[in-house]
C-alpha cells in the first residue's frame, strides 16, 4: 500500500476511532480509576484504596444480587433461545416464498426500533390487579382473587425480558439458517433422516454461530440491565445494575464504580467463553 492511500485509510476510520476513544475507553478507564477512590457524603477523594472492593465482596447482599442477576440471565437465555429458534426455524424453513419470508422477518424485527420503556409500560393494562389477564381468568371462574404475582414480581421481569430481547436471538439465528445450503437438507432426507433428525443433526449444528451471537446479546443485556428490573418488579427484585444505580443516587460513586468493574469482568469472561464458539468476522 502506498503512503497516500494509507493516510486516507486512517482519515476514513478516524471519526469512529475517536468516538470509541473518548466515549468508551476513557470512561471505562475513569470507572477503574474512581473505583479505588475514597468518598464521603459530599465528595469523592482521589486515593488508592481497596476498601470499595473489600466492602463489596464481603457483603452477602452483593453475592445474593449477583446470584439473582445470573439467574435472570440464565432463565431469559433459555426462553429466548427456545422461542427465537422456533420462530426463526418456521420462517426460514417452512415459509416458501422469499417475499413472505422478508415480510415475516420484518414483522419480528420492527419492535426493535421502538421504545423499550413504552413496551414495558404496555404490560400494565395486561398484568395489573384489574388488568386483562386477571379479569379474564376471574370471568372464566378459574380464580376467585386477582393473581398478585403477575405484575411487580420476578415473573413480570422475565416476561418483559423475553418480550424485549427475543428478537436478538431471532435475527442472528435466522441469518445462520438462511445460509444453510438447502441441498444438505435434501441429502439428509435422501439418507433417510426424519424431519426431527435433520433438525438436530444438520440444522442445529450449522446454527451454532447465530445462537452464540444471539446469546451474547441477550446475556450481556440482561446482566447489565437495571430499568427493566426497576419498572417491572416495582423495586421488589434486585439486579447488579439496580444496585449500582442505588449507589449512584446516594452519591457513592466509588462504590458504584467498583461494582461496575466487577460486573464488567464477569461479562467479559462470559463473552470470551462464548466467543470461542464463533468467529464473528466470518458471520457478516
Amino acid at each position, binding site marked *: 500500500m502506498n503512503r497516500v492511500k*494509507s493516510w486516507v*485509510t*486512517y482519515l*476514513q*476510520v478516524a*471519526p*469512529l*476511532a475517536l*468516538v*470509541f476513544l473518548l*466515549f*468508551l475507553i*476513557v*470512561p*471505562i478507564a*475513569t*470507572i477503574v480509576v*474512581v473505583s479505588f477512590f475514597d468518598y464521603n457524603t459530599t465528595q469523592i477523594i482521589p486515593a488508592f484504596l481497596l476498601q470499595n472492593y473489600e466492602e463489596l465482596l464481603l457483603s452477602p447482599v452483593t453475592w445474593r444480587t449477583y446470584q439473582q442477576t445470573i439467574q435472570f440471565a440464565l432463565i431469559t437465555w433459555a426462553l429466548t433461545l427456545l422461542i427465537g429458534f*422456533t*420462530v426463526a*426455524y*418456521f*420462517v426460514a*424453513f*417452512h415459509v416458501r416464498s422469499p417475499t413472505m419470508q422478508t415480510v415475516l422477518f420484518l*414483522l*419480528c424485527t*420492527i*419492535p426493535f*426500533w*421502538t*421504545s*423499550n*420503556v*413504552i413496551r414495558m*409500560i*404496555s404490560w*400494565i*393494562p395486561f398484568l395489573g390487579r384489574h388488568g*386483562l389477564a386477571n*379479569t379474564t381468568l376471574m370471568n372464566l371462574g378459574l380464580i376467585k382473587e386477582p393473581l398478585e404475582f403477575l405484575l411487580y414480581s420476578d415473573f413480570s421481569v422475565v416476561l418483559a425480558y423475553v418480550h424485549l430481547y427475543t428478537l436478538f436471538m431471532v435475527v442472528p439465528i435466522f441469518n445462520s439458517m438462511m445460509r444453510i445450503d*438447502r441441498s444438505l*437438507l435434501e441429502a439428509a432426507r435422501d439418507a433417510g433422516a426424519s424431519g426431527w433428525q*435433520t433438525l438436530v443433526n444438520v440444522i442445529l449444528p450449522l446454527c451454532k454461530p447465530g445462537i452464540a451471537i444471539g446469546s451474547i446479546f441477550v446475556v*450481556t443485556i440482561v*446482566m*447489565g*440491565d*437495571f430499568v427493566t428490573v426497576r419498572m417491572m418488579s416495582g423495586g421488589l427484585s434486585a439486579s447488579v*445494575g439496580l444496585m449500582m*444505580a442505588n449507589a*449512584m443516587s446516594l452519591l457513592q*460513586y466509588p462504590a458504584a*464504580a467498583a461494582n461496575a468493574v466487577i*460486573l*464488567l469482568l464477569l*461479562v467479559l469472561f462470559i*463473552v470470551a467463553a462464548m466467543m470461542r464458539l464463533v468467529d464473528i*468476522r466470518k458471520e*457478516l
Partner: protein
Amino acid sequence: MQHGKRGPAFWFLGAFFCLFVLFLYGPTLTILILSFQGPGGGLTFPMNGVSLHWFRNLFEKQMVGDFAGSLQRSLILGVAVMLVTVVAAFSAGLAFRSRFRGSGVIFYLAIASLIVPSILISLGIGLLYRVLGWDPAWYSSAFGAHLTWTLPFGLLIMFAVFNRFDRRYEEAARDLGATSWQTIRHVIVPILLPSLIGVGLFGFTLSYDEFARSLYTAGTFNTLPLEIYGMTTNVTTPVLYALGTVTTGVSFVVIALSLLSVTWLRRRRARHGSDAGKAA
C-alpha cells in the same frame, strides 16, 4: 420439507409464530386503544367513553412535565446521531476493505462497545464529566454515549454490505477516469444507498429510544425516554398511554419511511438498472 403438502409441523409452528407476533404487538395495541380513554377512564379496561382528552393533556406543559421539550430534544439528538452514524460507519467501512495497522483493535473496540453493558458506558461518561468538572448535557455527553451504541451496529452492517459489494463497478469507474471522490459520490454511494438508509434507521431509532446510556449523561434536560420513565413513577392516568402512542407513532413513521424508500429505490433500480443489450 420444501415440497408437497403442509404437514402438521407446519401448522404447529405457524400457530406458534402467530402467538409470538401477538405477544410482540398485543401489549402495544392495548395501550394504543386505552390512550383514547374517556376523561373519566382509568389505566385498565373497560373503556369509559372515547376521547382525545389525554392527548390534549399531554401538550399542557404543567400537567406532565416537559413532554414537548423532551420530544424536541430527542428528535434533534436522533437526527444528529443518525447523520454521524451514517457518515462515520460508511467511511470506516471503506477503510476496513483493506487491512491496515490497528484494524483488529478497532474491530474489537466496536464489539466491546456492543457488549459492555449500557449502564457502564453511562456511568463512565457521567463520572468522567464529574471528575473533569464539566456539566453533562444531552447534546454533548449523551450524544457521545449514543454513538457508542449506534456506530458498532452501523459498522457491522457496512461490513456485511461491503462483503457483498462488487468491486468491479469501482474499477470500471476508475478505468473511465473517475477520481476516488467521484467514484464514491457517483458509484459507491448510489449503489449502497438502501443500506445507508438502513444504517440511518438504526442510528435514529436506537438514539431516540435509548434509556440507560442517557441516564447519567443527559444532564439537566431530559430526553424523551428519561421523561417517560420519570412519569411512570408519578403519573397514574392514561396520559401515560397517550405518550406511549405518540412516541411509538413517531418510531413507526420513521420505520415506514425507511422501508418505503428502500423498496422504492429497489424498484427503480430494477426498472432502470441494466442497460445491457440496449446499445444503439
